[in-house]
């Protein structure tokens, strides 16, 4: 159902919605960027339509609304553990199509992988509706079209931002109720059809080639380039990894909590076992572990690629490592390996 709203009317409805919903959208945090006088755009609750940053890509993905960077999962006292509680307010998130598709990617892991649902993700996810922000141009590092994630249909509403108002396509019946006195207007959401960056998806035929790729010298350059800061994986909309830690209160060590925090295969210690054994010993190893997961390993398990082509990892890398260029190098390496017979090991 299409509607055309002035900003004033849109804000009035937003205020009505806020009684039932927490509303998250990409918001500007001035001078909080990593260089002087630069901003950060990240997801936070909004009070007005004008607060939504529409003309720039958000620095971070909306995943942190559903999976906070740090989250207390259990409280413990002596011989008892208890789950953290949560209020029952519903959630609306303004997201671009690639980010909506990234939800599906994370959810194959958080919901169902191995027959287990992540309790904390699921209880939040059940309260969430997506408002898709129309995205027709993208930015220089985007390659959603190559990844097939430029379109999304599973939204409660879609929005186009105009100078003095918004156009909406509201699919969700509950949301439609808020627009009873708004004049209907035809609106069909559009999608981006081509990016500046085009990526050819790597095709790795079998395990033998996969293991030959792991040993290929293409990864060596990342030993000197990657600094293992993990900025790429924090910004990534599809990275799911976390580590749990226990902490206790200084005034009573028998009371405390178990938290989980984003972790990353890029940072030191991710695969370090008790006793000090480490499997991926160099940044070449950690880089290929991440890259192959995004464009091969995940697909082997779940049937679809993990990467959605949002380009945030490239945007955030302080060493200017471009993910799309890395895939290009990977394609060259695969070609090289497939063209000469792999030696029997």
């Amino acid at each position, binding site marked *: 159902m299409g509607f055309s709203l002035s900003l004033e009317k849109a804000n009035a409805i937003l205020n009505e919605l806020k009684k039932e919903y927490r509303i998250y959208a990409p918001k500007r945090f001035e001078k909080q960027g990593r260089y002087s006088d630069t901003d950060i755009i990240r997801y936070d609750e909004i009070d007005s339509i004008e607060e939504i940053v529409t003309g720039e890509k958000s620095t971070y993905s909306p995943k942190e609304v559903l999976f906070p960077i740090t989250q207390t999962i259990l409280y413990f006292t002596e011989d008892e553990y208890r789950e953290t509680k949560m209020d029952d307010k519903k959630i609306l998130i303004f997201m671009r199509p690639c980010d909506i598709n990234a939800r599906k990617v994370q959810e194959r892991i958080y919901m169902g992988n*191995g027959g287990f649902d992540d309790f904390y993700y699921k209880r939040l996810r059940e309260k969430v509706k997506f408002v898709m922000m129309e995205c027709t141009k993208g930015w220089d590092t985007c390659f959603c079209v190559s990844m097939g994630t430029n379109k999304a249909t599973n939204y409660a509403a879609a929005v186009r931002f105009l100078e003095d108002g918004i156009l909406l396509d509201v699919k969700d019946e509950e949301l439609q109720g808020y627009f009873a006195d708004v004049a209907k207007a035809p609106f069909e959401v559009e999608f981006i059809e081509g990016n500046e960056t085009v990526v050819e998806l790597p095709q790795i035929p079998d395990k033998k080639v996969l293991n030959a790729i792991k040993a290929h010298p293409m990864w060596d350059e990342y030993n000197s380039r990657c600094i293992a800061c993990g900025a790429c994986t924090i910004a990534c909309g599809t990275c799911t990894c976390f580590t749990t*830690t*226990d902490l206790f209160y200084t005034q009573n060590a028998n009371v*405390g909590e178990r938290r989980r925090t984003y972790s990353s295969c890029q940072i030191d210690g*991710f695969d370090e076992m008790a006793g000090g054994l480490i499997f991926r010993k160099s940044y070449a190893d950690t880089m290929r572990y991440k890259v192959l997961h995004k464009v091969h390993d995940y697909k082997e398990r779940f049937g679809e690629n993990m990467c959605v082509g949002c380009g945030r990892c490239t945007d955030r890398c302080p060493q200017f490592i471009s993910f799309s260029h890395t895939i290009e190098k990977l394609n060259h390496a695969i070609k090289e390996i497939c063209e000469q017979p792999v030696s029997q090991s």
Partner: protein
Amino acid sequence: MIINPVMPKPCKIIDIIRENKNEYTFRVESDITPEHGQFLQLSIPKVGEAPISASGFGDGYLDFTIRSVGKVTNEMFALKPGDMLFLRGAYGVGWPIEEISGKHLVVITGGTGLAPVKSLLSKCLNEPEFVKSVFIISGFKNEDGILFKNDLESYKKNFKTVYSLDIDKIDGWEVGFVTEHVNKIPIKDYEDNYAILVVGPPVMMKFTALECLKNGAKEENIWVSFERKMSCAIGKCGHCRIDEVYVCLDGPVFNYKQAKDLVD
């Protein structure tokens, strides 16, 4: 009400058996009945969680044999009978009971690697008809590292055994790595009706499996058990992933045909 799979349950420690200086077996009160080779998440509040294989289980109890190597395990060594441990699980894929049943069983272990196969060996002792024969090669670094001394004695009486220390020379024990004793396994006599289980540090498993192949074993008749860092044990946290495989879900036990291609 949604079930929270990461909620641990309190369990009382009934007994602590000091196997050697660095390895203790904790017996806890529990009704959980894991499959042979599965693991559980053990936690101590304030310290954290660690994945540990059950080394034994029976009516109302579970045994965990633990080496003090990490943060959680070090803290555990300060616990006493009557104290609480917290458990969730059991998780993962254990030893392939159907592939072992009725066959010649070969078990090759390095160090604490004996713990994840101990419950299976107990089954072989208690149910002699379960397998045709048992051949054990068990290696430890030195005399101080020997585990389950009483069990090793009863294995010696009932099964074919080769016990070896890497360096130390003591009575009744061979000297050298387990790989050096693989040629003592009468693989040819097993007429393709055998299962070889290998557990120990990654390097030990790799070279032991290669040695088995050299001595005529088939890849599909060998199984190994992996250990990796884990936070969740339910396929969410990502720490234990190798390629498309999650060690916590698809392992820890893998057939060698699959395991040989898994490069971390």
